[in-house]
């Protein structure tokens, strides 16, 4: 599913090169649940962005689902994100002016699905995350946990083979965090998506993954 070889990402700032990811080699099989644990600034989010096709590696090769991300153009990257990736962020990243249902519909709109079909699918997914009765609510009218449920529905509505989550429970209280954690696990099992979790929480990583890696100063090591 995922094959990274000597992957590196360096940012330039004020004439200096700042390495964020260094020499990462990684292989993940389809359906695996992988967690990357690391402190803030260790490069784990950068690695997730590379896997999501949001950022481009400085060197090395990255193949996801048979596609070379390091060789893709902007439009191909966008198409890859649209079809193959579901993203869940710590701060939910919902469109504030759109209803819950519209937010969930977003990947389907971008994929060019008909209105009737996408409305049907988005409603089903909102039902599945327990928000069937909140579909017309705007994000500000939802609690943090509910917003994250909407984000999860949005991430999975187009049934991507890869689900990437960056601190998905970081902004939630512990009870809600456990609910979200369970929801993600259930849905991943249901859709058979490969799950890639980035967190600083080792316990969460332990509960949610079958393989765990530790990231330190851009370097990755399995533990």
């Amino acid at each position, binding site marked *: 599913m995922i094959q990274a070889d000597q992957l590196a990402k360096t940012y330039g700032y004020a004439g200096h090169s700042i390495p964020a990811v260094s020499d990462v080699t990684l292989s993940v099989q389809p359906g695996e649940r992988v967690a990357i644990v690391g402190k803030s600034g260790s490069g784990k989010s950068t690695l997730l*962005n590379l896997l*999501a096709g*949001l*950022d481009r590696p400085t060197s090395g090769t990255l193949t996801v689902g048979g596609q070379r991300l390091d060789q893709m153009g*902007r*439009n191909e990257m*966008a*198409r890859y*994100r*649209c*079809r193959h990736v579901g*993203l869940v*962020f710590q*701060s939910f*990243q*919902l*469109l*504030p*002016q*759109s209803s819950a249902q519209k937010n969930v519909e*977003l*990947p389907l*709109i*971008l*994929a*060019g699905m008909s*209105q009737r079909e996408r409305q049907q699918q988005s409603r089903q997914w909102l039902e599945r995350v327990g928000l069937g009765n909140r579909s017309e609510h705007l994000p500000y009218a939802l609690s943090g946990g509910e917003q994250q449920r909407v984000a999860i529905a*949005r991430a999975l509505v187009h049934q991507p083979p890869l689900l990437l989550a960056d601190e998905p429970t970081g902004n939630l209280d512990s009870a809600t965090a456990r609910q979200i954690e369970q929801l993600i696990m259930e849905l991943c099992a249901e859709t058979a998506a490969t799950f890639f979790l980035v967190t600083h929480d080792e316990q969460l990583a332990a509960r949610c993954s079958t393989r765990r890696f530790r990231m330190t100063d851009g370097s990755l090591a399995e533990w």
Partner: protein
Amino acid sequence: MMRILDIFAMALGNLWQRKLRTCLNLLGIVIGCTVLLLTAAAASGVGKAIHVLFDASEFAKEIRVSPDYYSSLPDPPPGTIVVEGEMSDERRERIREVLVNQWKMEQSGVQDWQISLAEIEELKQVPHVVRVVPNGFLDARLNNPQDNTEMEISLAGVDAASRVITERVIAGSMLDENARDQVLVSEVLAYQLGFRSDSELHELVGRELTITYQVGGQKYSRIYENLKFLSQQDGPSLADQAAFAVTFSQLLDDLDKTSLTEEQKEMIRRVTQPDRGNNGAPAQKDEPAIEVQRTFQVCGIVNSDQNHQTISDMFLMWFHGSHGDLLLHHEVAVEMQSQIPERKDDYYNVAVIVDSSRNLKSVTEDLKAKGLDVDSALMILDNLQRGIERSRWYVLSIAAAILLASALGISNTLVISVLQRTPEFGILKAVGARDRDLLLLMLCEGALLGVIGATLAVAVSWLSAKVGQTFLARHLSGQNVADLSGQLLQFQLWAVMAIYGVAVVICVAASLLPAWRAARLDPVVAMRRD
């Protein structure tokens, strides 16, 4: 791939969600487009209103036609007329033109410069000509019904449909189109006949007037006319005039004995003896005059309005040639004039009436092509149209400046909007939006602003026009002027379509930079700006 319909729906949603920003952007577009549309409507409407005004006043529907004296004469040989001295080419040409005409006059002698009845018939065939009114004019004697004395009067033919003459009727009514025995009496003649008070003028209406005119024996009338003219110019004395007449009479009798060419003799005979016999021989000089009597019924009294308040009034008075003591149907005047052999083709000018002032130009050109000299209101009309055209460009420039300012405002607002919506664009990109999708989304927002702005501008313009027309109609009601309330603003379909085009193009152009910036956003950086 994102569907165009979804892009439009999303763009419309964005505009709706940001109502204040949308309203501010629309304000500039609506003001600019309204000014543009009203300018176009006014330019079209005022042009038409001028024609309505001109048509209503008959002024611009009439063309005064006379023979083109100068162009019908041969040009001087090259080098004959040379304007010397240091001067501009324009001035030299002006002076040369006058000198050439003077040379033509000197060289041509007496020419047949009248319009014949046959030529008048030809004028009636010109497209858009509805009537041709020859300037019929003749002298007669009137039997005063009050005391049975006779007095010298003049008769002039007028157009029974003339509104100008109709407006001069102070008692009775205008000539009936079909009653050929009717006449209008000038108030001066009525006064001379003894009809002075208003009630007496009304008494005159319906009365019969008998006139007498000569249809023969006027062999030397033209010579005498010329002598009369000369005497007015400090010419020869009366004794000299009489002596000249006798001498000239002898010359005519002995014309064949002179060394003049046959062509010259024929010219003198034609000018001095237009009354020719069937065999072409000159009529006898002692041919007795035949006096014809004709009785008319007075249908109305006309004022002798000499105080022309406007240029068009002055033109109209001149055009209608209505200074006779008795005004009668122009066809009757022509018929009477035709009975006088030497005057039957003696029309120095005729009034050609066209169906609309819009066709004035084409008819004028047709008449000029026939070698006729033409006077009409075309120059005034052209000047007015040019003035309107210039004004239109001034106002259009102002409207364009407003639209440009609006475009800059829209661009500025959209740039700020992109900055505000950066996290939103980041999310869209994160979930799979391509550069092209965001570019189209922003351009669609611009295009929708243009369409909505143009629609509002059309509505505002139409309402403004309705309100303006209502006020104008109220203001003009009761005044003796043409109702222009429905004419001044003429909305053309092409102008409305053009407004939509202009508004959309300007808004899309204003959206280009913000759209490009939105499309090129890095999703990771964009999402971090939350």
